[in-house]
């Protein structure tokens, strides 16, 4: 097999792999930009994956089966947003420690999704899921066509969300408020911005995107649901936000790097290269740790009040 073909195979796999991470991390970025890091992202993805699967599965035999996937995505986003609001209630209104609350939310989402799945479904069952849509014309471009333009609708959406999130953060009033609230909430407060409200909104949006990311896993990638489907991707998404220095483009880069490492290790197994497979599976995770440890710290650009609850009447 030529090196070119190998690269092609790796990249064709890497792009769909990156979508769930990208969606979740872009959402998490809004949370963190607003000063709240949501470790519960993983749990939200579990619930999103479950509902994304459950809704079309339950509608299979009904006359509306054609809308199943669409409604599944909607339900996943709705439950994500709802969980975002719950998280906001705990961390913003009651000012609980964000780390602990996040771990709680993660366990809640993970456990709830598994329990509900066993109650309503039980064994291993697939759904039809979302089919790939080859973009006419563009998908015929040699090399790039297969890598970029032969995926399902959610993949295109995720890629388009990168510039959209950038625009939202840097070019709109809401994005300005989000950035201010996460960096210097007291300054935002003195300028008449409702810090808590903006944090609620950011957590809601971030939650909805994490829910969508989960639904992508069950509806598009695996076309089934199981307890361990999400497999810690929510935590990787949180790490990718740091990795990407809180910029949508950086997050895209991080998501792609991670996915390329992942699809590379899968391809290695397929090619039958003699290499202990356990090490290969570790590769992407090790890569994230190494890059995070070595990344240059750009303190001026990040949300410096990340993780701190805001209390107007606190004196120091």
């Amino acid at each position: 097999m030529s090196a070119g073909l190998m690269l092609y195979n790796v990249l064709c796999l890497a792009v769909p792999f990156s979508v769930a991470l990208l969606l979740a991390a872009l959402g998490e970025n809004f949370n963190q930009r607003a000063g709240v890091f949501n470790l519960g992202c993983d749990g939200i993805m579990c619930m999103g994956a479950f509902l994304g699967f459950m809704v079309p599965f339950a509608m299979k035999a009904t006359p509306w089966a054609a809308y199943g996937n669409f409604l599944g995505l909607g339900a996943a986003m709705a439950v994500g947003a709802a969980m975002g609001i719950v998280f906001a209630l705990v961390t913003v209104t009651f000012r609980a420690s964000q780390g602990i609350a996040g771990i709680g939310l993660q366990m809640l989402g993970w456990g709830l999704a598994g329990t509900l799945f066993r109650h309503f479904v039980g064994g291993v069952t697939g759904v039809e899921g979302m089919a790939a849509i080859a973009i006419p014309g563009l998908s015929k471009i040699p090399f790039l066509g297969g890598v970029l333009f032969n995926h399902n609708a959610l993949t295109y959406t995720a890629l388009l969300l990168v510039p959209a999130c950038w625009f939202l953060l840097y070019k709109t009033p809401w994005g300005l408020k989000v950035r201010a609230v996460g960096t210097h909430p007291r300054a935002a407060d003195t300028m008449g911005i409702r810090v808590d409200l903006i944090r609620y909104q950011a957590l809601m949006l971030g939650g909805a995107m994490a829910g969508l990311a989960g639904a992508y896993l069950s509806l598009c990638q695996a076309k089934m649901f199981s307890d361990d489907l999400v497999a810690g991707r929510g935590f990787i998404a949180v790490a990718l936000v740091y990795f990407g220095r809180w910029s949508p483009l950086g997050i895209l880069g991080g998501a792609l790097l991670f996915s390329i490492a992942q699809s590379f290790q899968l391809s290695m197994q397929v090619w039958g290269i003699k290499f202990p497979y356990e090490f290969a599976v570790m590769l992407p995770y090790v890569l994230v740790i190494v890059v995070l440890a070595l990344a240059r710290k750009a303190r001026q650009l990040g949300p410096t009040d990340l993780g701190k609850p805001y209390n107007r009447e606190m004196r120091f």
Partner: protein
Amino acid sequence: MTALEPISELKLEGITKRFPGVLACDDISLQVRRGEVLALVGENGAGKTTLMNIIMGLYQPDSGTISVNGEPVHFRAPGDAYARGIGMVHQHFMLVPNMTVAENLALGLKELHHFMNLDIKGAAKRIREVSERYELPVNPDAYIWQLSVGEQQRVELVKTLCLGARLLILDEPTSALTPQETDDLIERLQRMASELAIIFISHKLNEVKALSNRVSILRHGAVVFNGQTANHESSELAALMTGHDVVLPRNEGSGPQGEPLLSVRNLCVRGDRGNLVLDGFNLELRAGEILGMAGVSGNGQREFADALAGLRPVESGQMLFEDKDLANRTPREIIQAGMGYVPEDRQTEGIVPSFSVKDNLILKDFAEPRFSKMAFLRRKAIDSNAEMLKERFDIRCPSTSTATGSLSGGNIQKVILAREISREPKALVAVYPTRGIDMGAQEFIHEQLLARRREGVGILLISEELEEVMNLSDRIAVIYKGKILKVLPAVEATRERLGILMAGLADPDSPGDAPVATQAGVAHE
């Protein structure tokens, strides 16, 4: 943003505010009119900032009324205050560092917020208009973190004016500024005062005298004095502020000149950005003297103090302390050699803010047998040590179990000084020891430093307050761009001469003395 009508008068009546355990404002009544500068002075913790936060709607008063142009108002948030033309420049700047000047302004200008579109050009235009009108040069596209403290101060002023404020509350606006920036600011404010109303909060009486028409003095949350500034001397105001006469102590000179204690030779140290900030730095400190280091901040003072405390690696050169080289030693070794250190940033380097006063007092000695036994802390010894030091250093705190970070700046500094001095160091490095500290505490700190000098401690006083350096020092070293430009006996120093040296110019009083060629620290004899 135009107010309902231009603000012509703000009146406070009977404002009272309690915090847990503290009566921050006690039945305060004040009044300020257009075209007038009211100075609000008082020691740290007198309730000035709390009162202003009440005016801005950040805190709600427990009782009392605020009225604008004779009409009672009730502000729930700063936005309400701005809507009536009242704006505040906070002591700690309310600027988001990772956003541009224009973005910072746009945060508060709701009319620039359109759906999915932020009119950042509109904000920049507004900034240019205001900065031209009030002669406050500001670049709307600069990021806040790139600006100096003085520039950020101007941005705050411009921002507040852009938001429509015509009554400005300035909370200790000069506390972080260099002397040059302070003079510049006072001058600009004087020009602006005619068409605005200004409440100027400060405890620097020379600034109060220079700028204000009227003065109100707060003490322990209550107004103790109202009067025309011009009719009262600074010393009179200082006495009213502290509750007793204040005479800042002076170094009376003479006394035995001790042995050389610390000699720094050809020290080279890198700054945060990797450039050489100290380059061939020489200095000698003797026992029983106060050596003042004067200079505009940013000329290497911080890096020198860091290196001396073992917090920053030394590139090359020596720091001989009683013939032992302290360069690149750990802080522990340096402390044990007998060096005391009062750091520049008292909140983050001097204390652990969330620790109690008594724990902060043993931060350097917790492992001594006095305070611990077999890995257990001896609480009784720690308590009695704290009570003793609280008494001796007049630390004003509800109890020695109070979190140190909640104390006023002056009291935090007393905690640090108590810890450092009670360890009986041979040399003491004090970096900006009275920055942002009120007169009463300043007087006390100066007395302490002079007393240690008499006991034979060598004290290096790094400061940008010329008064302080000239009052306390035996000799004065002027630092400029990482080198000591000149060391002169304090009796020969004048404000003008130091000012010229601090600007890096040749010393006018000793012709032919080219500054760069001066091998200062060695050549002072």
